[in-house]
């Protein structure tokens, strides 16, 4: 993995930096576990969706939202272990080329939440190289926090899907998402303007 000059960042900090940039009711899909725990901890927004299972589907769910609402920017936050379960989704997204989708991969090389076991990709595979090889030309490692913010700015102005990979530490999520799937889904639909509350 060609990450020697890449700073090890923190998931909650990086997530908070992303959320601080969102001014236009952008949708954010948080993958299973720590990824959505930190999205929750960064401050609930009506346009956030939190996965409580279906490991690996943050990018496909985000793709569906992006296809349904092409005028809304959609972000997806996914862990490296989760992405490894659904690498084919990268090619699907590359083929469909949604202009409004940005994928962020939080890569610590471990399944932190299950006991910090290393993933099979740790130390041998490069997420950005995989993404580029899958057809996502606009894929890059964030060198540090400032570079991450610059890449987010670029992605928000881009006319093709973007993937940003972030090396993160082994810290657990800061918060714990309230595990109420119906309420999560309903409030997300309100946030996207699909439905009005009862």
């Amino acid at each position, binding site marked *: 993995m060609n990450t020697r000059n890449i700073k090890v960042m923190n998931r909650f900090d990086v997530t908070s930096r992303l959320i601080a940039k969102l001014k236009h009711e952008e949708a954010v899909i948080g993958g299973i576990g720590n990824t959505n725990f930190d999205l929750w901890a960064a401050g609930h927004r009506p346009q956030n969706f939190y996965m409580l299972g279906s490991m690996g589907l943050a990018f496909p769910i985000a793709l569906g939202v992006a*296809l349904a609402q092409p005028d809304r920017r959609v972000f997806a936050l996914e862990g490296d272990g989760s992405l490894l379960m659904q690498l084919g989704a990268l090619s*699907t997204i590359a083929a469909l080329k949604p202009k409004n989708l940005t994928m962020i991969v939080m890569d610590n090389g471990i399944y932190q939440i299950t006991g910090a076991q290393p993933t099979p990709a740790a130390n041998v595979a490069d997420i950005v190289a995989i993404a580029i090889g899958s057809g996502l030309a606009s894929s890059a490692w964030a060198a540090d926090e400032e570079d991450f913010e610059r890449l987010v700015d670029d992605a928000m102005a881009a006319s093709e899907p973007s993937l940003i990979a972030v090396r993160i530490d082994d810290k657990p999520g800061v918060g714990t998402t309230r595990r109420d799937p119906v309420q999560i889904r309903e409030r997300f639909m309100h946030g996207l303007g699909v439905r009005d509350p009862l």
Partner: protein
Amino acid sequence: MAIAEQQPQGSSDGSWHGIVLQTLKRNEISLIPYVPDRVLTPLIKNLHADPYFTTFATAREEEAVGIVAGAWMGGRRGAVLMQTSGFATLANVLASLAVPYQIPLIMFVSERGTLGEFNYGQSLVCRTMRPVLGSLALEHHTITRLDELEFITDRSIKQAITTQAPVALILNPLLTGGKVFDK
């Protein structure tokens, strides 16, 4: 199948796939991710040819489920096409996404593994399908008759959407002709 494959695209000429296509359109279901199946080929071909639909292949069936779940939450309706062995990969996403989040997931499953199956593995995996559907108490129908296809499909789609619950429509070889040993 030879007759069915000669039908013009997107037709409502009475072929099973023409009826499915028209019923999808009538119910404003426009997003169709699929993992292909030989029997579904005329339906997939005609969906691709009709600009009303966004039709595309995914690498796995659960990926397709994620996509239509996201699209539903964003206000766009979709349906997933697959074969029996693909359904067998879905227990986790059904139990952790579609059912608990109350997503009206609409699945069309081309039924392999019965009525002339020539691959033992297909016949075994087919036997896992209805127990999985039953274990989650999911609405499902096995469609065997052309004259019942539109009614079952149209009503099931409407029920899925209004009750916010998944439905599996199993396209039996009695309806589609199925896939038979040919080599």
